[in-house]
């Protein structure tokens, strides 16, 4: 009986020393740049956004979305400048208008835990673009993190008859 009690006490002691193990990685671990349409929803066009990969192939990041007020775009880990091709397709005429948006940024490593995948945050330093369909782009929040609630860029489009 005494041996049983001592064993139970030792087991309790061991359990006390084994701390609960949990992995505290953020639920939303994707670092994305949020672009908000400054004039409300994009209603007259469908939008496709692509970029050029390291091997010169295109990668579609956003595919033919419409009636949206914002989009989220990934940013590269190592490049100093990312180029995004915004392809606007008119819903009625089916005409394509393509604008190029270049985002210059710094890449800052971010550490949560050894259990979480390596992450890079970005600091937007400059934005340039062509003006075929896009009128202006304003930097609203230069910190690109996994908090996608605050828009990083505000994109204003030209009026249809401009």
């Amino acid at each position, binding site marked *: 009986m005494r041996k049983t*009690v*001592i064993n139970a*006490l*030792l087991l*309790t*002691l061991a359990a*006390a*020393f084994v*701390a609960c193990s949990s992995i*505290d990685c953020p639920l939303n671990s994707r670092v994305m740049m949020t672009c908000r349409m400054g004039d409300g929803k994009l209603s007259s066009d469908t939008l496709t956004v692509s*970029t050029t*990969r*390291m*091997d010169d192939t295109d*990668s579609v*990041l956003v595919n033919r979305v419409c009636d949206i007020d914002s989009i989220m775009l*990934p940013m*590269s*880990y*190592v*490049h100093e400048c990312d180029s995004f091709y915004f392809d606007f397709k008119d819903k009625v005429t089916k005409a394509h208008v393509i604008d190029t948006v270049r985002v210059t940024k710094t890449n*800052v*490593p*971010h*550490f*949560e*835990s*050894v*259990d*979480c*995948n*390596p*992450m*890079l945050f970005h600091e937007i330093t400059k934005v340039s673009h062509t003006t075929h369909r896009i009128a202006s782009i304003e930097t609203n929040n230069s910190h690109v993190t996994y908090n996608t609630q605050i828009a990083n860029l505000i994109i204003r489009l030209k009026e249809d008859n401009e």
Partner: protein
Amino acid sequence: MNKTLIAIALGLALSAPSLHAAPGTGDKDATKQKKDSVALFRGVSVSADMVGLAQLAFSDYGQYEAALRVNLRDKFFPIVEVGLGKANAENATTRITYKTSAPYFRVGMDLNMMKNKHDDYRIYLGARYAFTYFEYDAFSTGVKDPVWGDAGDYNISGVKCNYHWLEASVGVDAKIFGPIRLGWSVRYRKRLSNNDGDYGNTWYVPGFGKQGGTRLGGTFNVIVEI
């Protein structure tokens, strides 16, 4: 060995109602203790923690820790604990390596809760203030960009951080032979303030354990009491 087990049992029984119960309702004069006449200074003890060594041997982090404790009337035990916390952890899945090595310090007091203060066994309740200033490195090679396809290095180096925390301690120790005592303690750590640096979080904090608001820990001490 038996004394060690008894010491462990005594500590676990600390929460038992019998030890917290008020004195009996019998004749107060009969239970009244004689005035304690021992000297204020009863000696000093030095101790080393074995749990930290075991952690270093069997896990990715751990600490070397020693303590100097003064015995006042066998009741009050002011204590200073000094340690060197080390981590060298690599996660096989994320391939991130985290390294740190830094000293930490604790200062506080233990109270002997035994009714007979001069017994070979002691049950302690204690509190500590602790702090550490440390730097960490986190790095990974060949981090592949899932969209663009490039591979780059992920390197965070020499991030200066600090942690300040309080510890509540419950422990026991027992005289084994001569000046040698063995004992253990369970620690509840509560962070007071921290600076995690400019790159997000820390992971292992020397003396505190894995970063967070609170942490449970423990020590198993080999003590030499003079």
